[in-house]
C-alpha cells in the first residue's frame, strides 16, 4: 500500500461519494470494466433538453475507481450531452488532483462509462445506430492487467 498515496480529493470522494444509486427507466445506461479485473462501473443518466438532468452510478472496485465514478457524475451533471462527451479520463484524474500512475488505466473508467451511457441514449433517439458504436474493449476480459 505504501506506493499508493491518494490525494485528499480522491479520499474525500471515496469516503463521501456523490450520486450513488440507480435511475429507474434511465434514458441512457453505460457499463464498463469486468469484475475479473477488479473494477466494474455503471452509470445511469436522465436527459432533458439535451442536457444531463440526473446521473447515478454504482461501482465495484478500488478507492480510485469509486472516487473517479463519483467525480465524473459531478462533472457531467447539468452539462449538455456534447460537452459531457468531451470529458476525458485525464480531465477526471486532473480534477481529482491526480491518480497514482498504476491506477490511471485500470480504475479510471468513469469517462468511458459516461460516454457509453450517452451513446446508448443517442441510439435510443435514433441519432446513432447501434452498429456505429465501437465499444472500447480495453477493459474487458483478457485485456485486464490481472489476466
Amino acid at each position: 500500500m505504501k506506493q499508493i498515496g491518494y490525494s485528499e480529493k480522491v479520499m474525500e470522494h471515496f469516503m463521501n461519494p456523490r450520486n450513488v444509486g440507480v435511475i429507474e427507466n434511465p434514458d441512457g445506461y453505460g457499463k464498463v470494466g469486468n469484475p475479473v479485473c477488479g473494477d466494474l462501473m455503471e452509470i445511469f443518466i436522465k436527459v432533458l433538453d439535451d442536457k444531463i438532468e440526473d446521473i447515478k452510478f454504482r461501482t465495484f472496485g478500488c478507492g480510485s475507481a469509486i472516487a473517479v465514478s463519483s467525480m465524473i457524475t459531478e462533472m457531467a451533471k447539468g452539462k449538455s450531452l456534447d460537452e459531457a462527451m468531451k470529458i476525458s479520463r485525464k480531465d477526471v484524474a486532473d480534477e481529482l488532483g491526480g491518480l497514482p500512475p498504476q491506477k490511471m488505466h485500470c480504475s479510471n473508467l468513469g469517462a468511458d462509462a459516461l460516454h457509453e451511457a450517452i451513446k446508448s441514449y443517442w441510439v435510443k433517439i435514433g441519432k446513432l445506430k447501434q452498429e456505429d458504436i465501437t465499444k472500447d474493449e480495453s477493459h474487458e476480459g483478457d485485456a485486464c492487467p490481472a489476466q
Partner: protein
Amino acid sequence: MGGIYLDHQSAMPLDPRVLEFAKTCLVEDFGNPSALHSVGLSAKTAVEEARAKVADLINAEDSSSIIFTASATEANNLAIKGTALRNAAKGKKILASSIEHISVLNSMKELQKGGFELTLAPVDGMGVVDLSALESLLSKETVLTSIMYANNEIGTVEPMQEISEMVQEKGMFLHADAVAAEGRVPIDVQKDGIDLLTISSNDMYGPQGAAALYVSPKVKLQPSLVGGGQERGLRPGTENLFAIAGMGEAARLARLEMANESERLKHIRDRLIEEISKLDEAYLTGHPTKRLAHHASFRFSRIEGESILLTMDAMFGIQISTGSACSSRTLEPSHVLLAIGLKHEEAHGSMVMTLGRDNDPSQVSSIVGAVNQTVQRLRMLSPL
C-alpha cells in the same frame, strides 16, 4: 490516533524492552565487531550473544548455524540460490509450494533462467501442501525444496515434519521460510528436520533491518555477496549491530512468551472468525484450525479489498491488509489466493487481520462492527 492496528504481518512495533536492551549498541558498544580493540570486542560479544539467542529460539544445534542478514528477502535469496548453485553438481531440480513468498518464488525463477528445472507443488483449498503431489515431484536430483512454515496471507501452518521426512527420503535439502510462523509456533529445526530456515527480526517485535538464516552444518552454501568474511563468509558486510542485538533480545523474549501470547491471541482470533464469518457472503480463507494463532483472513463477495482497507482505516481507524490486485504493485491478485482455488473476482475481495500484543478481547465488537459497516457500505455502492 487511537486506532486498532491489525496488520502485524506487515510491520510490528519495536518492543520497548528490546529498544532498552539494544540502544547501548548505538552509543556505547558501537564498535566494529571485526576490530580487535576493546570497543570492537564488546560489539563482537553483542553479535555472538544475539546469535546464541536466535539459535535457542529455533533449537539450532550450534549458534554458528545462524547467519545474520539484513532482511528475510535476503535470507531467502541466500538460502535458495546459495544452496542450489553450490550443490548444482548433485542435481538441478528445485521445488517450492505454489504459495511461497515472492522472494522465494523469484529466487527460484532466477535459478530457472540459469538452467534449473523448477516445479511448484500445489496446495489444497485451505492452503495445505498436497503431500502426495509433493512426493511425486521429489527426486534425487531435487537439490532444494522450499516450503513455508506457515503462510502470511491465509495463516495456514504446513505439516513440516511430514514434509521434511519426505524431502529427506526422496530429495536433498529443505528450506523453510518461517517469517510468518516465528514467535507464534514453536520451531525446532532439529526435530522438524529443516536444513535451512529464514526468520526476521521485526516479525517478533525486533528492529527492522535484521533477519537470520539458519544453515544446518550439513549444507554448504555459495554466498551472494563477497567481501570481508563476516558471517563465516556467507554474508560479508559490517554488522548492523543495533538491529542484530535487538533481534537476539526479541528472539529471547519470543521464546519465553510465545506460548502464553499465542494462547491469548487465539481467543481473540477465534471470536473474530466466529463473528465475521456470520456476515453475509463472508468466508474464512485458509485452514480453520491448523492456522497461526494471531491470523484471521477472509474474503467477501461483490466488494474489493483495497476499498475495504481504505474504509476500515479512514472511517474506523482500523488497519488491515488485503491480497487485492488493486493494492499491489503488479495489479495482479494474490498468487496465494489463486493457488487455493479462488477465482480472480473472489481474490479481489480479501481481508487479512493479524493480531499482536496491543490487541485485546475488548476490541472484538468494535472490529466486527466496523467490518460489518464497511461491507454494507461497499455493497451498497456495488453493481454486483
